[in-house]
Protein backbone atom coordinates (compact mmCIF):
# COMPACT_ATOMS: atom_id res chain seq x y z
CA UNK A 1 0.00 0.00 0.00
CA UNK A 2 1.20 3.43 -0.72
CA UNK A 3 -0.22 6.80 0.07
CA UNK A 4 1.08 9.34 -2.34
CA UNK A 5 1.28 12.95 -1.38
CA UNK A 6 1.90 15.14 -4.33
CA UNK A 7 0.94 18.81 -4.50
CA UNK A 8 0.88 18.71 -8.27
CA UNK A 9 -1.96 16.23 -8.02
CA UNK A 10 -4.08 18.96 -6.53
CA UNK A 11 -4.31 20.58 -9.90
CA UNK A 12 -3.84 17.59 -12.16
CA UNK A 13 -5.81 14.48 -12.83
CA UNK A 14 -5.00 11.54 -10.66
CA UNK A 15 -3.77 9.65 -13.69
CA UNK A 16 -1.08 12.26 -14.06
CA UNK A 17 0.21 11.45 -10.62
CA UNK A 18 1.11 7.82 -10.95
CA UNK A 19 4.20 6.59 -9.22
CA UNK A 20 7.47 7.31 -10.85
CA UNK A 21 10.92 8.13 -9.78
CA UNK A 22 10.16 11.83 -9.59
CA UNK A 23 13.48 12.80 -11.01
CA UNK A 24 12.21 14.77 -13.93
CA UNK A 25 12.91 18.43 -14.59
CA UNK A 26 9.55 19.42 -13.21
CA UNK A 27 10.51 18.42 -9.72
CA UNK A 28 10.38 21.27 -7.28
CA UNK A 29 13.48 21.95 -5.25
CA UNK A 30 11.70 21.39 -1.98
CA UNK A 31 11.74 17.64 -2.21
CA UNK A 32 10.30 17.25 1.25
CA UNK A 33 7.05 18.78 0.13
CA UNK A 34 6.83 16.23 -2.62
CA UNK A 35 7.24 13.37 -0.27
CA UNK A 36 5.55 10.20 -1.23
CA UNK A 37 4.46 8.28 1.73
CA UNK A 38 5.25 4.71 0.91
CA UNK A 39 3.30 3.35 3.82
CA UNK A 40 4.20 -0.20 3.11
CA UNK A 41 3.22 -2.46 5.91
CA UNK A 42 4.88 -5.27 4.16
CA UNK A 43 3.46 -8.74 4.44
CA UNK A 44 6.88 -10.30 4.54
CA UNK A 45 7.85 -8.19 7.47
CA UNK A 46 5.61 -10.22 9.68
CA UNK A 47 9.00 -11.45 10.83
CA UNK A 48 8.69 -10.36 13.57
CA UNK A 49 5.06 -9.43 14.05
CA UNK A 50 4.87 -6.19 15.98
CA UNK A 51 1.72 -5.68 18.03
CA UNK A 52 0.73 -2.04 18.06
CA UNK A 53 1.19 -0.17 21.29
CA UNK A 54 2.56 -3.32 22.85
CA UNK A 55 3.58 -2.98 26.46
CA UNK A 56 6.16 -5.76 26.29
CA UNK A 57 8.72 -7.03 23.88
CA UNK A 58 6.96 -8.57 20.88
CA UNK A 59 7.28 -12.26 20.29
CA UNK A 60 8.61 -13.48 17.00
CA UNK A 61 6.50 -15.78 14.86
CA UNK A 62 9.61 -17.36 13.42
CA UNK A 63 10.00 -21.09 14.02
CA UNK A 64 11.50 -21.85 17.39
CA UNK A 65 14.39 -24.27 17.74
CA UNK A 66 12.87 -27.27 19.52
CA UNK A 67 14.40 -28.35 22.79
CA UNK A 68 14.59 -31.90 24.15
CA UNK A 69 13.78 -33.46 20.78
CA UNK A 70 10.34 -31.83 20.66
CA UNK A 71 8.72 -31.74 17.21
CA UNK A 72 9.17 -28.73 14.99
CA UNK A 73 5.95 -27.51 13.41
CA UNK A 74 7.14 -24.25 11.95
CA UNK A 75 6.38 -20.72 12.99
CA UNK A 76 3.07 -19.04 13.58
CA UNK A 77 3.48 -16.48 10.80
CA UNK A 78 0.57 -16.63 8.36
CA UNK A 79 1.25 -18.17 4.96
CA UNK A 80 1.42 -15.69 2.09
CA UNK A 81 -0.75 -16.24 -0.97
CA UNK A 82 1.29 -18.74 -3.02
CA UNK A 83 1.05 -17.03 -6.39
CA UNK A 84 1.61 -13.48 -5.13
CA UNK A 85 4.67 -11.65 -3.95
CA UNK A 86 4.80 -12.14 -0.22
CA UNK A 87 5.56 -8.45 0.16
CA UNK A 88 2.14 -6.95 0.59
CA UNK A 89 3.10 -3.80 -1.23
CA UNK A 90 3.77 -5.80 -4.38
CA UNK A 91 0.55 -7.75 -4.29
CA UNK A 92 -2.17 -7.26 -6.81
CA UNK A 93 -4.51 -4.39 -6.22
CA UNK A 94 -7.96 -5.34 -5.00
CA UNK A 95 -10.46 -5.70 -7.81
CA UNK A 96 -13.25 -8.07 -8.79
CA UNK A 97 -12.38 -11.74 -9.22
CA UNK A 98 -9.00 -11.77 -7.54
CA UNK A 99 -7.86 -13.24 -4.25
CA UNK A 100 -8.51 -10.46 -1.75
CA UNK A 101 -6.91 -12.07 1.28
CA UNK A 102 -3.26 -11.52 2.07
CA UNK A 103 -3.18 -14.78 4.05
CA UNK A 104 -3.44 -18.32 2.74
CA UNK A 105 -5.29 -20.90 4.86
CA UNK A 106 -7.61 -18.20 6.17
CA UNK A 107 -11.30 -17.94 6.95
CA UNK A 108 -12.98 -14.89 8.36
CA UNK A 109 -14.12 -11.36 7.81
CA UNK A 110 -12.35 -9.54 5.04
CA UNK A 111 -12.54 -6.14 3.39
CA UNK A 112 -10.36 -4.46 0.80
CA UNK A 113 -10.39 -1.04 -0.80
CA UNK A 114 -8.14 1.04 -2.98
CA UNK A 115 -7.95 4.06 -5.21
CA UNK A 116 -8.44 6.74 -2.59
CA UNK A 117 -8.86 10.41 -3.36
CA UNK A 118 -8.62 13.21 -0.88
CA UNK A 119 -6.90 16.36 0.28
CA UNK A 120 -4.90 17.27 3.32
CA UNK A 121 -2.48 19.74 4.86
CA UNK A 122 1.17 19.34 5.83
CA UNK A 123 2.94 20.90 8.79
CA UNK A 124 3.96 23.87 6.64
CA UNK A 125 0.37 24.62 5.75
CA UNK A 126 0.60 23.33 2.20
CA UNK A 127 -2.55 21.84 0.75
CA UNK A 128 -1.74 18.50 -0.87
CA UNK A 129 -3.69 15.85 -2.69
CA UNK A 130 -3.27 12.32 -1.42
CA UNK A 131 -4.11 8.90 -2.74
CA UNK A 132 -3.51 7.03 -5.96
CA UNK A 133 -4.74 3.80 -7.54
CA UNK A 134 -2.55 1.72 -5.25
CA UNK A 135 -3.55 3.38 -1.99
CA UNK A 136 -4.79 0.11 -0.59
CA UNK A 137 -6.22 -0.77 2.81
CA UNK A 138 -7.71 -3.95 4.18
CA UNK A 139 -8.66 -5.86 7.28
CA UNK A 140 -8.71 -9.59 7.86
CA UNK A 141 -10.27 -10.88 11.07
CA UNK A 142 -10.61 -14.56 11.71
CA UNK A 143 -8.76 -17.82 11.77
CA UNK A 144 -5.61 -18.82 9.98
CA UNK A 145 -3.60 -22.02 9.96
CA UNK A 146 0.10 -22.08 10.67
CA UNK A 147 2.48 -24.26 12.67
CA UNK A 148 -0.09 -27.05 12.37
CA UNK A 149 -2.65 -25.26 14.47
CA UNK A 150 -5.30 -22.59 14.21
CA UNK A 151 -4.72 -19.00 15.26
CA UNK A 152 -7.19 -16.19 15.79
CA UNK A 153 -6.01 -12.77 14.72
CA UNK A 154 -6.88 -9.44 13.16
CA UNK A 155 -4.58 -7.94 10.56
CA UNK A 156 -4.62 -4.75 8.57
CA UNK A 157 -2.86 -3.95 5.36
CA UNK A 158 -2.10 -0.25 5.39
Amino acid at each position, binding site marked *: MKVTLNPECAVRKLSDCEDGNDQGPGLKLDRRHLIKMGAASVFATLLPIRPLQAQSEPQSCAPAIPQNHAPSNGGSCPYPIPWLDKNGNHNQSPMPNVELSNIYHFKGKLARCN*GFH*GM*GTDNKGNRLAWGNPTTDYSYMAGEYWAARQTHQAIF*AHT
Partner: protein
Amino acid sequence: MTPVPDTGLTFTADNKIATLQMTNVPIIDQPRWPAMDAETTPAFMDFKLVFKATDQPVKYEDAARQYRFEGFKATAQLEAAFRVPSIDFSFKTDPLETSSCDFAVMGSGVNGKYYEAVKSS
Protein backbone atom coordinates in the same frame (compact mmCIF):
# COMPACT_ATOMS: atom_id res chain seq x y z
CA MET B 1 0.41 -6.51 7.24
CA THR B 2 0.04 -5.24 10.73
CA PRO B 3 -1.54 -7.03 13.69
CA VAL B 4 -4.54 -5.14 15.02
CA PRO B 5 -5.60 -5.00 18.67
CA ASP B 6 -9.07 -6.39 19.34
CA THR B 7 -10.33 -2.89 19.95
CA GLY B 8 -8.98 -1.66 16.62
CA LEU B 9 -11.69 -3.20 14.46
CA THR B 10 -15.36 -2.73 15.30
CA PHE B 11 -18.59 -3.61 13.53
CA THR B 12 -22.12 -2.39 13.83
CA ALA B 13 -24.68 -4.93 15.00
CA ASP B 14 -25.79 -5.66 11.45
CA ASN B 15 -22.16 -6.04 10.28
CA LYS B 16 -22.77 -3.49 7.54
CA ILE B 17 -20.32 -0.90 8.84
CA ALA B 18 -16.77 -1.69 9.89
CA THR B 19 -14.38 0.79 11.45
CA LEU B 20 -10.66 0.15 11.56
CA GLN B 21 -8.81 2.63 13.72
CA MET B 22 -5.16 2.51 14.75
CA THR B 23 -2.56 4.89 16.09
CA ASN B 24 1.21 5.08 15.88
CA VAL B 25 1.43 2.42 13.21
CA PRO B 26 5.08 2.09 12.17
CA ILE B 27 5.42 2.56 8.44
CA ILE B 28 8.10 3.62 6.00
CA ASP B 29 8.44 6.71 3.88
CA GLN B 30 9.87 5.51 0.57
CA PRO B 31 9.61 8.32 -1.97
CA ARG B 32 11.37 6.49 -4.80
CA TRP B 33 9.41 3.23 -4.48
CA PRO B 34 9.34 0.92 -6.47
CA ALA B 35 12.96 1.51 -7.45
CA MET B 36 15.07 -1.40 -6.24
CA ASP B 37 17.42 0.87 -4.31
CA ALA B 38 14.71 3.14 -2.97
CA GLU B 39 15.78 4.38 0.44
CA THR B 40 13.38 4.25 3.36
CA THR B 41 12.75 6.45 6.36
CA PRO B 42 10.82 5.38 9.46
CA ALA B 43 7.46 7.05 9.81
CA PHE B 44 4.22 6.64 11.71
CA MET B 45 0.58 6.94 10.92
CA ASP B 46 -2.74 7.21 12.69
CA PHE B 47 -5.80 6.39 10.68
CA LYS B 48 -9.52 5.73 10.75
CA LEU B 49 -11.00 3.71 7.92
CA VAL B 50 -14.74 3.15 7.60
CA PHE B 51 -16.29 0.56 5.30
CA LYS B 52 -20.02 0.68 4.61
CA ALA B 53 -21.62 -2.23 2.78
CA THR B 54 -24.10 -1.60 0.02
CA ASP B 55 -26.92 -3.97 -0.90
CA GLN B 56 -25.07 -5.21 -3.97
CA PRO B 57 -23.75 -8.74 -3.38
CA VAL B 58 -20.50 -9.99 -4.85
CA LYS B 59 -18.91 -13.41 -5.02
CA TYR B 60 -15.41 -14.04 -6.27
CA GLU B 61 -14.30 -17.65 -6.43
CA ASP B 62 -11.56 -19.64 -8.09
CA ALA B 63 -11.63 -23.35 -7.34
CA ALA B 64 -8.24 -23.89 -8.92
CA ARG B 65 -6.66 -21.40 -6.57
CA GLN B 66 -8.93 -22.37 -3.72
CA TYR B 67 -10.32 -19.04 -2.69
CA ARG B 68 -13.82 -17.69 -2.29
CA PHE B 69 -14.99 -14.26 -1.22
CA GLU B 70 -18.64 -13.53 -0.53
CA GLY B 71 -19.85 -10.13 0.51
CA PHE B 72 -21.06 -6.81 -0.74
CA LYS B 73 -19.74 -3.89 -2.66
CA ALA B 74 -18.95 -1.15 -0.22
CA THR B 75 -17.83 2.39 0.22
CA ALA B 76 -14.69 3.23 2.14
CA GLN B 77 -13.50 6.51 3.58
CA LEU B 78 -10.20 7.30 5.24
CA GLU B 79 -8.87 9.91 7.62
CA ALA B 80 -5.19 9.72 8.49
CA ALA B 81 -2.21 11.56 9.89
CA PHE B 82 1.41 10.78 8.94
CA ARG B 83 4.61 11.73 10.68
CA VAL B 84 8.19 11.44 9.46
CA PRO B 85 10.13 12.65 12.51
CA SER B 86 13.59 12.60 10.97
CA ILE B 87 12.66 15.20 8.38
CA ASP B 88 10.17 17.08 10.51
CA PHE B 89 7.33 16.34 8.15
CA SER B 90 3.75 15.65 8.99
CA PHE B 91 0.56 15.51 7.00
CA LYS B 92 -3.05 15.30 8.01
CA THR B 93 -5.87 14.48 5.69
CA ASP B 94 -9.10 16.38 5.63
CA PRO B 95 -12.00 14.84 7.60
CA LEU B 96 -13.15 11.33 6.83
CA GLU B 97 -16.25 12.30 4.91
CA THR B 98 -14.25 14.24 2.32
CA SER B 99 -12.42 11.16 1.03
CA SER B 100 -13.57 8.55 -1.44
CA CYS B 101 -12.23 5.43 -3.08
CA ASP B 102 -12.71 3.65 -6.38
CA PHE B 103 -13.15 0.08 -5.18
CA ALA B 104 -14.27 -1.44 -1.90
CA VAL B 105 -15.84 -4.71 -0.84
CA MET B 106 -16.53 -6.23 2.55
CA GLY B 107 -17.66 -9.67 3.54
CA SER B 108 -16.01 -12.96 4.35
CA GLY B 109 -13.37 -15.04 2.70
CA VAL B 110 -12.00 -18.56 2.82
CA ASN B 111 -8.99 -20.04 1.11
CA GLY B 112 -6.42 -22.79 1.26
CA LYS B 113 -7.26 -25.60 3.63
CA TYR B 114 -10.55 -23.94 4.55
CA TYR B 115 -11.80 -23.67 0.99
CA GLU B 116 -13.43 -27.08 0.81
CA ALA B 117 -14.38 -27.22 4.47
CA VAL B 118 -16.43 -24.03 4.45
CA LYS B 119 -19.35 -24.31 2.08
CA SER B 120 -20.53 -21.43 -0.04
CA SER B 121 -23.70 -19.77 1.19
